[in-house]
């Protein structure tokens, strides 16, 4: 029995263990080598409208400057931070020149805090708002690599330099497959600014926040910078599914990303051996305005085109992704069909006698979305595919023990009958012995 004092001691021990070992997933894999650090770039609008004093009596730029100072001070050790400004240097009226006005004032890396804060302090609201160009340049600053990059865009006005439309730029950057997420913060409640920023955010899987005070701004930027550190290392492998099963790429377990247009089918193949179980799930992100009702379908097909199993989901209303999944394992003890269906294009049959032939299961992702006429279809919507192949789980046998009144009655009856039979046998034996 555990007494109260003992359980307190146990609690202490477990707490000690938790503080030493029980860290969140991100910290648990520090042993894996050569990991790219999380990268964030803050993009600040320093256009003329930032002079407005509507955030608690202070000007927007001074609130932003103070927030940036606090963020730089509390930057997590491993995070690489850069700062880019737009509309900060050209005071004139020439739109052609004003719309090229964006500079990186702190390069992406571990910034020197004093230098970074000095660079922030010298900013003065000046020029135009070339958001699209600034996003493109920020994506270049962050470079390409394995990890997710985050851009935090802080602006108070809509783009005054379109084209390029910043939302189109965001979609184009997301489609390049560099795992770029743009979080947007609006320093004003203006309708057009909000629409533009929500469009940018949803195109890249980011968030939009309307900021109305300095504390909110600081808290949100810190949260986004921390989020970049928490989640940066899980980026899917980019692939391109085929239209036909026969030419589809062969996948091993893991996470993949792809793009799929409306009404397009994308096929992938996964080798599954007898005694194994295929698990697959798919998410289609809704990165643009679509019709009210929508659906996604994931089908598993055998090599001869027979449907094995399907998963589907449908819905309506505001949502970010539609997702579904499926499990499938080859029927046990049906050895004849496995070799027959293993001839995936004639190339997968060269297995030796000991290895069992793997069947290529074809996964087909399709969708049923309605695209309003004004919305562009290309590039396709982001698809995230997770594939796993594990050992199949056999159906359980019955339980070894019984339960219930029927069981009790049967046992009692069997005991009674056994006793009676044993008794009669004994009497008959005694009778026979006496006669002899």
């Amino acid at each position, binding site marked *: 029995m555990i007494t109260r004092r003992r359980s307190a001691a*146990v609690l202490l021990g477990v707490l000690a*263990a*938790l503080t*030493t070992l*029980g*860290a969140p*997933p991100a910290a*648990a*894999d520090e042993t*894996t080598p050569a990991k790219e650090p999380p990268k964030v770039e803050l993009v600040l609008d320093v256009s003329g409208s930032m002079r407005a004093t509507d955030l608690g009596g202070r000007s927007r730029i001074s609130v932003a400057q103070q927030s940036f100072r606090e963020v730089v001070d509390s930057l997590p050790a491993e995070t690489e931070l850069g700062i880019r400004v737009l509309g900060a240097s050209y005071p004139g009226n020439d739109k052609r020149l004003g719309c090229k006005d964006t500079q990186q004032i702190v390069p992406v890396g571990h910034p020197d805090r004093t230098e970074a804060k000095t660079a922030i302090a010298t900013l003065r609201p000046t020029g135009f708002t070339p958001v699209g160009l600034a996003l493109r340049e920020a994506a270049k600053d962050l470079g390409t690599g394995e990890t997710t990059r985050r851009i935090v865009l802080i602006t108070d006005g809509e783009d005054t330099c379109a084209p390029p439309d910043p939302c189109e730029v965001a979609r184009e950057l997301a489609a390049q497959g560099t795992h770029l997420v743009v979080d947007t913060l*609006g320093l004003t409640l203006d309708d057009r600014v*909000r629409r533009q*920023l*929500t469009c940018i955010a949803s195109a890249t*899987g980011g*968030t939009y926040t*309307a900021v109305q005070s300095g504390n909110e701004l600081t*808290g*949100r930027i810190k949260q986004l910078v*921390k989020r970049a550190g*928490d*989640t940066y*290392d*899980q980026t*899917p492998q980019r692939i391109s599914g085929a239209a036909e099963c026969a030419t589809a*790429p*062969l996948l091993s377990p*893991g*996470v993949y990303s792809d793009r799929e247009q409306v009404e397009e089918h994308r096929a992938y193949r996964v080798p599954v051996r007898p005694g194994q179980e295929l*698990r697959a*799930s798919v998410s289609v992100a809704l990165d643009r305005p679509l019709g009210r009702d929508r659906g996604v379908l994931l089908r598993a097909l055998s090599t001869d085109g027979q449907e094995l199993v399907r*998963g589907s*989901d449908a819905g309506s*209303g*505001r949502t*970010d992704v539609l997702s*579904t*999944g499926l*499990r499938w394992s080859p029927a046990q003890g049906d050895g004849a069909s496995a070799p027959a269906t293993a001839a995936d294009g004639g*190339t997968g049959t060269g297995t030796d006698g000991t*290895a069992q032939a793997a069947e290529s299961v074809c996964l087909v992702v399709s969708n049923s979305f309605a695209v309003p006429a004004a919305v562009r279809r290309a590039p396709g919507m982001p698809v*995230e595919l*997770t594939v796993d192949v594990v050992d199949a789980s056999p*159906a*359980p046998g019955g339980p*070894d*023990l*019984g*339960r219930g009144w029927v*069981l009790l009655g049967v*046992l*009692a*009856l069997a005991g009674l009958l*056994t*006793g*009676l039979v*044993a*008794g*009669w046998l004994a*009497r008959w034996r005694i009778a026979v012995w006496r006669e002899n």
Partner: protein
Amino acid sequence: MRTAHLLRTAAGLTAAGAALLAGASAPASAAPADTGTASPGASGSAVPGTAGTSFLTAAALGRGAPVQLSASTGDYLYWAFGAAAGQTATVGVTVSLPPAANRHGAATWTVDVFDGLRRRQACTAGTQTAAAAADAATVSLDCTLRQVRSWAEPWSGDPLPGTYYVRLSATDLPEPDLGLPVRVEARVTSEDGDAEPEGGGLRAPLVPAVHPGATLAPGAVPSAAPPAPSGPSAARPVERARGWFSGISSRWIWTAGGGVLAALLGVAGYSLTRHPRRRPSAG
């Protein structure tokens, strides 16, 4: 008794010993927070927490104290927790809305639960979708899942041991309300029960892969057993200690009791036939 002794020993040892115990009992990353079952009444004080913004980045949600965080209206917040066979999990989310003066009308909030394969899970009880009136200060959502089964046919959609994802979203709201600050409190509790079907088990829980995959060459022969990659993983269920003896269940009592009854009736039946002359008033 045995585990209690083990724990006591560990508490007496140094931090290294305690760490060993934690390492042995909780191999999964998100497991330490998942141990035990919190009673709903214990959810007094919320701790600051995080939430992810997609399935892959879902933040681990532990049993016990609810997590609290600030977010923006319109954000999609994701959490993940592990559920073992026999458990019935209940997810609860409370959203503190921005001041009514800043809002433009009623909004609908929804909590969705998905299994490790991102399949939508039904709620057996609770308010999964709630409409917040234009002047409401908070909106509360909760969802009780089906009991997690120990085994199910691959073709079925039954809940199985593994990761479960929770998504909070504003499914319908006035467009001008997007981006306004909200505070969110999320918690998960669970009740243990007998897992059905008895004797069933999954070789691998429904914990999705999170590592980037690799395409195979067209003629490649996959390895017989794909190696389980170490590193980060989605929230895993805590496996209960399982040996040849699965513990005293009611089946043991019924079966043993039946054996005793059978033995007694056997003796009684034998005595019925053995001494017919000595039985009172019969012969």
